[in-house]
């Protein structure tokens, strides 16, 4: 039962975060890039004021996989780094916590540019 609830909450919370973006796409003139930026900043802000951690506890990947989770990782990394190293942590913590995902995406992007022939834009 508990396993089922884990998956249900991951599905529900992740789905709701995506529906909010879909509403923004359909009802406002925000471009996808702006929505992604807004999501990351919202993730940092909600983590900073302590509202995102309970959501991660409840939904795990439902809260960490959406891009707000990227902001959550940045804010958490910054806080841990400040705790350990002081003010310098404010500069180093964010990228350290997210370096894995960023590096992997960039390297895969580069590999894709090597092996996939670009299609002309329609």
């Amino acid at each position: 039962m508990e396993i089922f609830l884990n998956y249900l909450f991951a599905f529900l919370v992740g789905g709701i975060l995506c529906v909010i973006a879909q509403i923004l796409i359909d009802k406002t003139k925000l471009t996808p890039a702006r929505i992604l930026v807004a999501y990351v900043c919202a993730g940092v802000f909600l983590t900073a004021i302590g509202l995102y951690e309970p959501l991660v506890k409840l939904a795990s990947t439902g809260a960490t996989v959406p891009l707000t989770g990227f902001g959550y990782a940045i804010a958490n990394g910054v806080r841990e780094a400040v705790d350990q190293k002081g003010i310098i942590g404010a500069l180093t913590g964010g990228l350290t916590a997210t370096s894995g995902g960023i590096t992997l995406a960039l390297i895969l992007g580069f590999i894709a540019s090597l092996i996939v022939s670009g299609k002309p834009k329609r």
Partner: protein
Amino acid sequence: MNKENYNIYISRRAKKSPFLKNCCFAFLFGGSICALGRIFLDIYLYIGMEQKDASSLVSMTIIFIAFLLTAFGVFDNIAKIAGGGTLVPITGFANSVVSAAIDSKSEGYVLGVGAKIFSIAGPVILYGITSGTIYGIIYYFWTLLR
């Protein structure tokens, strides 16, 4: 035909975006991607990884899947239906990087791929770490005051 009439005419002719259907698909696809992430998380925890490492490996796994789908040209077809459902999960971030790299290949590897790969990832990283740094500074002085 004056401007007002023209706008009315256009809005009547414009294809109505099926708002409710879009939201349902965004919910289903987005929720499924997150539930899939949860499956990976349980696997990684089961083989004895720490929660934090397992969580970031889940993101990497999904980035890798998005890379495969983008490289094989399937991602756009899914994204057309899913909308926000594939944009908001880390798949949207990965797709923006990989597709930008593929599309800018013809412009060369330094100012083409090297620069354009950041066209969407750049703003995301910039504003993410900027707000993170602001939070870090505030948090630092907050801990001093306590």
